[in-house]
């Protein structure tokens, strides 16, 4: 078999199997960094052997057995064998190295531990993101670097440092339980949503959406939701991401310019993702209890998804959902979104009143969406010269090239309208 074919297969197997392999080995060696190295070694062994032996029928089982043997050799060398570990070795030699033969429950527990260790609070947010994509998402450092537009060495160093931090802090390979799980779940969901948003609304650069990163976040979200199926917020996050992702194609115009929600061609929304999103939201709601922040945001997104045209949107319900969200997770950003919804439900004057009340918020002082929203309300109210000033200010604040173009275009339109208005008002 040609080396190139084996290489392609091995890359594909890494993509779909590496997380479970690393999780399984980490249970033995109790260190995710070491586990990843051992699994990596197993893949290198595959690369050496498979060209002559052929690709095994069950590559994952082969890799797991190989990595397990190496794990046990390593433990033996470091003279840390105790009876428990010897019994593990017996398991391997008895043929239990087959990944398929492992109990499903064990795989689930290992994956849960892997997720929580990769998102451990001892790590910085950047490190958590990189480590989660690497260990749970199966991305290569090259892919992560490409997605975040940073040099590969930066990501590689970040991952090395993160593993060292976990090791030095002696973070056990354990998942929290009960109340502690509930307390630490938001940090996991935060990492996933950050990855999604990085793809959905590229904060810098020319790309408006980098769908591959969003797909990775969706995959991670679905994995976590299946690991903690009783957690409504995990389903809420999945619902939110599925519905937002359904708008990918409608969100970018034919020349790459952004198209805002209400201007989008809804026939281009992805029906499969909308359906999946609504189903995930339904799951979150059926778990009972008050909806959390992600589920509330998903419920808002669902209002748009269910409306066949922009005019059909149930803005009053959206206002009510934003009210609930503002109570639960008060933030100026939520208030800003509420202002937009209030403007749609009750007119631009009502919306502007809320937006105006936010101009003193320090956290929004450099946030382009506040002037952008105020520009919109001013323009609706026919106050074009104020609208122009706000759009221009918004354009100066955004880092996204496409978005800046759109805002400058609006500023120019308002400028023209303002000039057209002047003679009339003086006449």
């Amino acid at each position, binding site marked *: 078999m040609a080396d190139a074919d084996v290489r392609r297969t091995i890359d*594909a197997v890494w993509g*779909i199997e590496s997380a479970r392999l690393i999780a399984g080995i980490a249970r033995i060696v109790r260190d995710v960094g070491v586990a990843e190295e051992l699994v990596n070694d197993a893949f290198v062994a595959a690369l050496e052997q498979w060209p002559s032996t052929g690709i095994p029928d069950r590559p994952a089982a082969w890799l797991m057995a190989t990595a397990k043997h190496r794990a046990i050799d390593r433990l033996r060398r470091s003279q840390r064998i105790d009876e428990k570990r010897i019994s593990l070795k017996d398991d391997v030699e008895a043929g239990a190295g087959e990944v398929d033969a492992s109990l499903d429950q064990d795989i689930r527990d290992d994956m849960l531990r892997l997720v929580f260790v990769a998102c451990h609070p001892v790590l910085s947010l950047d490190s958590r993101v990189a480590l989660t994509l690497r260990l749970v998402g199966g991305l290569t450092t090259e892919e992560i670097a490409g997605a975040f537009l940073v040099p590969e060495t930066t990501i590689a160093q970040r991952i090395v440092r993160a593993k060292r931090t976990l090791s030095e802090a002696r973070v056990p390979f354990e998942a929290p339980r009960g109340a502690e799980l509930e307390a630490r779940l938001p940090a996991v969901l935060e990492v996933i949503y950050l990855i999604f948003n990085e793809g959905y609304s590229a904060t810098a650069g020319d790309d408006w959406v980098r769908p591959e990163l969003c797909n990775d976040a969706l995959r991670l979200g679905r994995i976590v939701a299946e690991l903690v199926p009783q957690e409504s917020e995990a389903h809420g996050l999945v619902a939110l991401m599925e519905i937002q992702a359904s708008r990918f*194609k409608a969100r970018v115009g034919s020349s790459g310019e952004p198209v805002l929600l209400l201007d989008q061609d809804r*026939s*281009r929304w992805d029906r499969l993702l909308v359906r999946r999103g609504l189903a995930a939201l339904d799951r979150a709601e059926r778990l009972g209890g008050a909806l959390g922040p992600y589920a509330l945001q998903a419920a808002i997104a669902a209002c748009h998804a269910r409306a066949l045209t922009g005019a059909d949107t149930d803005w009053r319900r959206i206002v009510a959902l934003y009210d609930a969200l503002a109570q639960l997770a008060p933030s100026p950003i939520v208030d800003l979104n509420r202002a937009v919804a209030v403007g749609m439900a009750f007119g631009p004057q009502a919306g502007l009143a809320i937006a105006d009340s936010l101009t003193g918020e320090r956290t929004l002082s450099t946030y382009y969406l506040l002037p952008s929203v105020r520009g919109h309300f001013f323009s609706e109210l026919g106050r074009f010269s104020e609208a122009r000033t706000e759009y221009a200010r918004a354009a100066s604040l955004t880092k996204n090239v496409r978005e800046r173009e759109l805002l400058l275009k609006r500023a120019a339109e308002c400028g023209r309208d303002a000039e057209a208005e002047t003679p009339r008002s003086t006449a």
Partner: protein
Amino acid sequence: MRFMMIVKASEDSEKGVMPPEQMLSDMNKYNEELVKAGVLLEADGLTPTKEGARVQFSGSKRTVIDGPFAESKELIAGYWIIQAKSLDEAVEWAKKAPNPHGDGATTNIEIRRIFELEDFAPSKAIDQARELGRELTKKK
């Protein structure tokens, strides 16, 4: 990227014979694995062709042919739609599936990438297709 993994029909599936218990449980387990990996978007099975029909086109003439149809190995019995990064990944997922017609059977699972709108160069026909989609959305 999205891929459709297509299961072909067999004589038994065409006869409407339900798969044995073991097969159903293996299939469930596989589907669960796809779900837990976060890659399964949709999956469905199709009823035998005796419940289906073909509309045959011959020039401008249309002829309706009722099922069942012969050549069962060419017929479709079910499908999965999965999210994968490459055809290679989709192939690895398909290799993990249980033999759809039992361990002794010879069959194949066909893997096809689903077109994305981006695959098409801008053209009048594409714009019309979008326009039609828009109309359909309005009428629903």
